[in-house]
């Protein structure tokens, strides 16, 4: 019982309320233009589609809280989906385990390079991204030859509702993992250390913290979150490709930024990211609804990120 109470006592700040306001505003605007949106099934679909972005953004959140970033996350997501689909003849559970193993491996390389070798996370994950693209491009024709579609059960699950609309399996998974992440960040020692090394890693080290361990954990958790997101994306679309998660990479960073986490580290939270994810998802729906050209969609997307980030910056400057 007390743990549930702990979940609920997450501090809500001014900026979170602003984001909620923006989300509600966008939702009403979209519903005004497309009345169908203002219905439970539509909301359910929106949540389900937001889930993978929410998971990738969760990974970015924890990286950015430590002052880092993971630009290889899209490839990790796609890679995990790939491995799960290739290994699916051995059984779904085993395939998922292989996927997890892949995430832990890549996350460890990223985390240890950043933590032990002092690599700049931007460059390390950029390089890792290139390496993964190369590995999987080559692999598709060689050692990763296999099915190019996700196992049946995962496809069904990714598109099914959970008990009743608007709940769905992706949403439930996102909710559970999101709740876990909030708990870890706010109520555990690991969470404190994530904020600590993001704010001043040197101070943490002098206080006896093994900073590299925390960074290792950060990038592994990030990779796992990306992997789960990738599997859901694969399940939702049914097929896997290397570019599977590419459209999610920059938005995953954008969602975190819109949500108020500083890219410099040490301050922010996942609650904001959740709202940022939902805002971006509703926005995508809105842009699709008004049937604009690709050009206009891109421009509006960029403008919205800029406007929101700017507004947020001004709010926090005035407080």
């Amino acid at each position, binding site marked *: 019982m007390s743990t549930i109470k702990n979940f609920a006592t997450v501090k809500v700040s001014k900026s979170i309320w602003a984001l909620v306001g923006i989300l509600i505003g966008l939702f009403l605007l979209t519903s005004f233009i497309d009345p169908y949106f203002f219905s439970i099934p539509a909301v359910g679909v929106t949540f389900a589609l937001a889930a993978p972005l929410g998971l990738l953004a969760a990974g970015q959140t924890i990286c950015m809280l430590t002052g880092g970033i993971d630009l290889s996350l899209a490839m990790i997501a796609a890679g995990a989906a790939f491995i799960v689909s290739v290994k699916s003849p051995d059984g779904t559970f085993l395939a998922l385990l292989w996927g997890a193993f892949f995430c832990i491996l890549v996350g460890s390389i990223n985390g240890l390079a950043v933590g032990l070798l002092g690599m700049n996370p*931007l460059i390390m994950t950029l*390089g890792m991204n290139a390496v993964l*693209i190369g590995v999987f491009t*080559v692999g598709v024709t060689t050692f990763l030859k296999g099915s190019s579609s996700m196992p049946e059960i995962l496809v069904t699950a990714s598109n099914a509702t959970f008990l009743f609309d608007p709940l769905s399996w992706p949403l439930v998974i996102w909710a559970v993992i999101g709740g876990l992440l909030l708990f870890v960040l706010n109520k555990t020692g690991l969470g404190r250390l994530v904020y600590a090394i993001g704010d001043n890693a040197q101070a943490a080290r002098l206080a006896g913290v093994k900073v590299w361990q925390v960074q290792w954990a950060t990038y592994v958790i990030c990779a796992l979150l990306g992997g789960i997101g990738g599997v859901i994306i694969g399940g939702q679309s049914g097929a896997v490709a290397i570019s599977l998660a590419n459209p999610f990479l920059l938005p995953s960073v954008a969602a975190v930024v819109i949500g108020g986490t500083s890219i410099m580290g040490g301050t922010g939270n996942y609650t904001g990211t959740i709202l940022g994810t939902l805002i971006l998802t509703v926005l995508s729906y809105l842009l699709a609804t008004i049937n604009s050209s690709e050009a206009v969609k891109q*421009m509006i997307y*960029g403008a919205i990120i800029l406007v929101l*980030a700017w507004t947020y910056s001004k709010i926090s400057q005035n407080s």
Partner: protein
Amino acid sequence: MGIVGLVLILGYWRINQLPQFGSYEARTFILGILPIALLSMGQAIIIIGGGINLAIGAEAVLINCLSAKYMAGTSLTESILLAIFFVGFGALIGAITGWIVSASGIADIVVTLATSYLLVGVAMFVMPQPGGGINQSLADAIGGKDPNFIPPLIWLILPLVVIWIPLYRSRTGIAMFAIGSNKDAAFLSGVNVNRTRIKLYAVGGLFAGLSGVVLTGITLSASPFAMISNTATLNSVAGAVLGGVSLAGGVGGLAGPAMAALILYFIPNILLAYGIDPSYSQIITGALTILVVLIGGLLRKRTGKT
């Protein structure tokens, strides 16, 4: 200095692979690297000044599209004027970006993330389908008429000599290094941080504009794809970093990134000649970038720390 060595080794290797190496082959080299080298140089300047421009590829693509659209079927004089105009326009976009960073207080990564979408969108708007053209004489002046490799070589070296070296020595240039090294110390030293930042992104944008126009001259067309701009941006960061520019800011030059572009060019071509899947080059490039930064970082670390 290791970069020079690497370039020479790879260059030697590649040249040996070719049945012959004459000015035609040299021209192919230089044309292959010119756009990305210019982009890396622009990104290098911005990183030296403590920023980063994730939209630099999009800027180049936009200028590419604009110039290809309006230069199609024009006279030489018109094309030249348009080229100058669009390069300047690139600088303007850069300046506006720099202004947004200063005025909003948002981190460079985030601002340029947003502008990358904006600029790609505008590029798509300007040119929904690949196409466009350029005055042939101007294209020859940029890319050199086969097998003349001197013109593109000039376009590689000229910005370095005419823009970078005077800038480096000037007070504005020192100010750029200053804000990249320590903003507070720069302010106390009398530097107007915001104005310097605007100039910084403007110069970066100038190089992006050059890259875009050069691309039009070489390909005689333009294509507005987001993926191209993202790849170009990431390559420009890799190029800058391989070229010895520190991501922390305040350290580096432009000659390194120009040469690093050669490395990024040689690797896939060498592999291709051996019949190896060029996708392996991605792996090598990625690993190489990591390695170079790692070694550079370790060399900078002081000894004796636990």
